[in-house]
């Protein structure tokens, strides 16, 4: 019930934001400084444009995109129908559109989380059914075994559907092909991890769009000791978990999705690295096609495989 209320609330918010974005379109464009009057401007140190960095000799990264803008000049001549009218009438309208997109993404993230939960439940049903088959087999009860087998077959079919549903949900939300998601699964990545690492999970969707009080709370929590030392290591963005399978540093992002630049900058930037010494990714075992795989310098100590960094209390599952 509360989920329905939450969803209803979000949909209402989206509707209000959509109206807010749509309505001012008729307005003439102005450089709307008044619209942000309530904001406290604390600095502009983030201005990274025009830093004088002219040392770039060209982009050697983009194998798929061959566009060369070096000859675009700065005339501003777009030669198209929106040359005279920007799509957003003013910065406030752009900000509202951004908030609307975030709200829609939040709804999507909940759907992804539900799809992931669906897989978990379907897997549990399969495990239970498989145990029933085994029990019937042990009891040498042919009839019960046949019934249990039928239940197992049905549970397997449900699991297949749930997995397809999750694959589709993540693919659509992340704008990454279904094939890429499948390849991540083939690398033994769990649904939840894929969703988190692709930024379509509720736990990571808000990163960078989070309010300060939440950050403060997060930092305060980080200072707890004892038992929480381990639990916090498993939180997204907290990278102090010990990898109980491989003992080496986790490689950020997703495994798999080789060749898909839609995965993110690690596949599009030639400065990206492939992971720690002795990690699977640095040894080319994750089929990711990361930007740079040439950092392995032999040595290191972890001897095993595994990309789990969850750690948790030592009882949680890595993926």
């Amino acid at each position, binding site marked *: 019930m509360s989920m329905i209320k939450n969803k209803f609330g979000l949909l209402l918010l989206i509707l209000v934001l959509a109206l807010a974005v749509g309505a001012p379109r008729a307005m003439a464009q102005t450089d709307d400084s008044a619209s942000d009057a309530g904001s406290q401007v604390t600095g502009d140190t983030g201005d990274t444009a025009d830093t004088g960095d002219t040392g*770039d000799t060209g982009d050697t990264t983009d194998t798929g995109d061959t566009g060369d803008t070096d000859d675009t000049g700065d005339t501003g001549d777009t030669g198209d129908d929106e040359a005279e009218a920007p799509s957003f009438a003013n910065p406030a309208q752009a900000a509202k559109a951004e908030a609307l997109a975030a709200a*829609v993404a939040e709804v999507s993230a909940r759907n992804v989380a539900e799809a992931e939960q669906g897989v978990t439940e379907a897997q549990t049903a399969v495990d239970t059914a498989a145990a029933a088959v085994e029990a019937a087999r042990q009891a040498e009860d042919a009839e019960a075994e046949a019934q249990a087998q039928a239940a197992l077959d049905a549970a397997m079919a449900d699991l297949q559907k749930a997995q397809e549903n999750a694959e589709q949900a993540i693919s659509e939300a992340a*704008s990454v092909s279904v094939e890429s998601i499948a390849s991540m699964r083939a690398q033994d990545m769990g649904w939840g991890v894929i969703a*988190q690492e692709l930024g379509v999970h509720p736990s990571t969707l808000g990163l960078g769009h989070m309010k300060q009080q939440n950050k403060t709370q997060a930092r305060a929590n980080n200072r707890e000791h004892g038992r929480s030392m*381990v639990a916090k290591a498993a939180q997204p963005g907290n990278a102090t978990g010990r990898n109980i399978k491989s003992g080496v540093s986790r490689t950020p992002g997703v495994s798999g999705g080789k060749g898909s630049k839609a995965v993110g900058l690690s596949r599009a930037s030639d400065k*990206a690295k492939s992971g720690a010494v002795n990690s699977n990714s640095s040894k080319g075992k994750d089929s990711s096609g990361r930007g740079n795989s040439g950092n392995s310098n032999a040595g290191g100590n972890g*001897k095993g495989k595994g990309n789990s960094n969850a750690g948790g*209390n*030592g009882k949680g599952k890595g993926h």
Partner: protein
Amino acid sequence: MKKFIAMLLVASVLAAAGCAKVVGPYYLQQEEYKEGIRVMGERFKENPDDADSAYYTGRYYLALNEPEKGLSYLEKAAELAPGNADYVFWTGVAYWALMDFDRERAAYEKAVSLDPNHISAHLYLGHGFVDRGQWAQALKEYDVVLGLDPYNPEALYNRARVLGELDRKSGEIAAWKQFLEYYPDGSMAMTATEQLNLQGDFSYRNHIIGQRNVTLKSMTFKPGTSVPDADGRASLTVLGAMMKANRDLAVHIVAYVKGNAPLAKARAAALRDYMLNGNPNIDRARLPLSWFGTAEKVEVGDSVFALDQAVNFITEVR
């Protein structure tokens, strides 16, 4: 005859030891831990002095989240081969899983005393110091790790965190940027970007593209022109690839140049042209443009930053 039997015995022992070194990693790599326990556990029973068999059996139990069982084998391995830093290191990991943090640290310290270049032991020593809030010690360990493995993701990431905790702001910003240059994807990158932005640096930003939070390197241009720098073009590649994968995706390119709307307009157009040139199948209507002669106001946490020159990407909700 006695000599022959002795040699045969030695050969058998060596073969058995050799097998453990070959077979042991196999079960780890294949993640067949239960089978590994069966095989190597049996081998250890037959050869109670075989440190390798004990070690791998301990590793399998640990991988199965059974740290208590794992620890007993790992301790046995360390006892049988006291000079092996790996065996000692893994007892530390098992102690961590059992939440015995003092013994964990002692194990790593012993491991680095046996092998000063043991990357993982230094890394996990650093992690332990972070968990305790002992920032200076953590920094020292991460610096050692990065001296041995310059692209170690967790050392790079936590080093930035630690510098922030030590109030070394410029170092923190540089460290986040270094991490993001090497590892610009995933939850760690999103968090790193958030932390970078909180420090007022917007070299990277998290954007909602489609229904996803994605880290992109911010677009910069040759001074006073609409020619984008090479660094940011990878972000356009990612955007283009996402638009190829999702044909419903439309993204506003919104450029800001304080006091120069025409330049902002040229920059928005240049970025669109770049994307369309590289992706001829993308309809230009899916990349609507906006431009403003003002700074972009970006709200991060409790602060609002004014970016005199910036480009934002905003998903069109249809």
